[in-house]
């Protein structure tokens, strides 16, 4: 198992390198200059500007610059935010727990909804329950997250006044009270993201279970006299989950995209809203770093999916 994980890790490295290359190319191809601001500043003489360009290697060939950038990123030297005047890595480390909590919890919520509903509707295809679940799932993944978010705010915060619609990281309460407040302010973003994910997952789970349930080994298990419950949970679901895991991993980029939108709606101080605000204030180092962190997160979740895959399907050899 250990070597398997290690191998997957090693496979992830080229894809990270590829992503960083794409990002760097976008950045290098972009018009405009990080020193453009200095050029318009009359207090900076041209010699100083030239010296700065020299120092930061702006005139080197692109491969050299990529190499320098990569080395700096690996050493943890992520640059300096133009706007908030602190190091980019501290800024991101401050923001990342909120994002991870929201994304993680919403994934768990989605799985908790999607697997039971998908399995149940696949065991009774074309029943009333199946049709209702299918319709809801269809509506669910056609509703963009920003619209569901606004609807939730309208319903629960404005009309019913149950939940706060602005996420605060500086809650004054302590102890149980703090957890309750935290729960109240997180539930809407988590539900918005979770429902969206669950909707597409239900469809995957349903079709995967439908594919598996017709196989001969399921009939064998039934013929052995196993209860329907055991057949479904032990024999069908485990096998059906294998393709689902792959599809969920492929969805990860979309999930993080949704997280950016939700963070923006509910004003959660995560890295998604950091990205938006730094784009709006032209804070290039932060923008590049956050995008890179997002790519790393996507690769990380793909890695987790791979490991899960190996656990679900013992036929995959670990060697």
């Amino acid at each position: 198992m250990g070597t398997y994980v290690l191998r997957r890790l090693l496979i992830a490295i080229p894809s990270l390198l590829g992503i960083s290359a794409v990002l760097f190319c976008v950045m290098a191809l972009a018009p405009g200059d990080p020193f453009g601001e200095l050029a318009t500043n009359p207090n900076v003489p041209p010699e100083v500007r030239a010296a700065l360009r020299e120092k930061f290697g702006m005139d080197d060939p692109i491969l050299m610059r990529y190499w320098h950038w990569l080395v700096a990123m690996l050493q943890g030297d992520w640059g300096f935010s133009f706007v908030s005047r602190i190091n980019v890595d501290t800024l991101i480390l401050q923001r990342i727990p909120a994002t991870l909590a929201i994304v993680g919890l919403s994934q768990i919520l989605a799985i908790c909804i999607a697997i039971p509903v998908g399995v149940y509707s696949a065991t009774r295809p074309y029943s009333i329950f199946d049709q209702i679940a299918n319709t809801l799932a269809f509506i669910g993944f056609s509703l963009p997250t920003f619209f569901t978010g606004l609807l939730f705010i309208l319903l629960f915060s404005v009309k019913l006044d149950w939940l706060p619609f602005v996420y605060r990281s500086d809650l004054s309460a302590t102890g149980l009270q703090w957890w309750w407040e935290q729960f109240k302010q997180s539930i809407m973003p988590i539900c918005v993201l979770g429902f969206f994910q669950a909707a597409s997952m239900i469809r995957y789970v349903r079709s995967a279970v439908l594919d598996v349930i017709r196989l001969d080994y399921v009939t064998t298990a039934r013929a052995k006299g196993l209860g329907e419950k055991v057949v479904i949970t032990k024999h069908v679901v485990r096998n059906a989950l294998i393709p689902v895991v792959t599809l969920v991993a492929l969805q990860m980029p979309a999930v993080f995209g949704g997280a950016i939108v939700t963070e923006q709606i509910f004003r959660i101080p995560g890295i998604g809203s950091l990205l938006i605000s730094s784009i709006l204030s032209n804070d290039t180092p932060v923008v590049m770093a956050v995008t890179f962190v997002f790519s790393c997160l996507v690769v990380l979740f793909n890695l987790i999916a791979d490991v899960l895959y190996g656990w679900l399907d013992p036929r995959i050899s670990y060697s």
Partner: protein
Amino acid sequence: MSIMIVVILFGSFVWKVPINDIDFRAKLSTPSFAHPFGTDDLGQDLLARMIYGGKISLAVGFAAMFVAVVLGTIIGAIAGMSRGWLGSFLMWLADLFLSLPQLPLLLVVIYLFRDSLKSVFGPEGGVFIMIVVVIGGLRWMPVARLVRAQFLSLREKEFVEAARALGASKTRMVVRHILPNALGPVIIAATIDVAAAIIQESTLSFLGLGFPPDIPTWGRILFDARDFLDIAPHWALFPGAAIFLTVVTINFIGDGLRDALDARRVM
């Protein structure tokens, strides 16, 4: 769906209220006879603005789909026909693009290239071209994989063999014989791509980074309405419902096409 398209295309001839007509007396009014969908905080008529935004959304959706399908078909066809390293390299590239976080990348590209394109093509055209190219350019991978899979099986079929025996060139074989047979799944993917592109465009506008503020796309109207949810819910509800209805119908068509073309229906 067709009703929707008709309304969006010809609505501006019927509903002649200009989109920028500011009327503070009718500010934030709820739906009424004069303004069927109500007005926003400057008293601008929402129906007129939504018809205008719908044109943009549909145009972006179809244009981005076109870019994605053309790019995907070309790459998939090359990958499917080549027997050497080129095919596996292109598929590796597709996998790489699939694991890129699309929305952040989209935002970054728009952030970096916005100003220069604006100066070349003007504010509206520049942003339109960029959004279409970027959304389409990040969505070619599923199409490429589909096309490649189709090509791999089709290129061994007898009719291709026959065409080759008749002395058809490689290009003619691909364009006249293989490609038409590979297009079924591509059409389904293209339908779904339109919906996805519309959602992405509205997401961008909703984040305040799409079209310039004076162009009312559906996402932009939602973005503006966000701060007035408590006093003017209709302002957010109508554009949101419009996005939702469009996407649902397009997805529905895609689903129906899949059921019609895919004989593997269960039970």
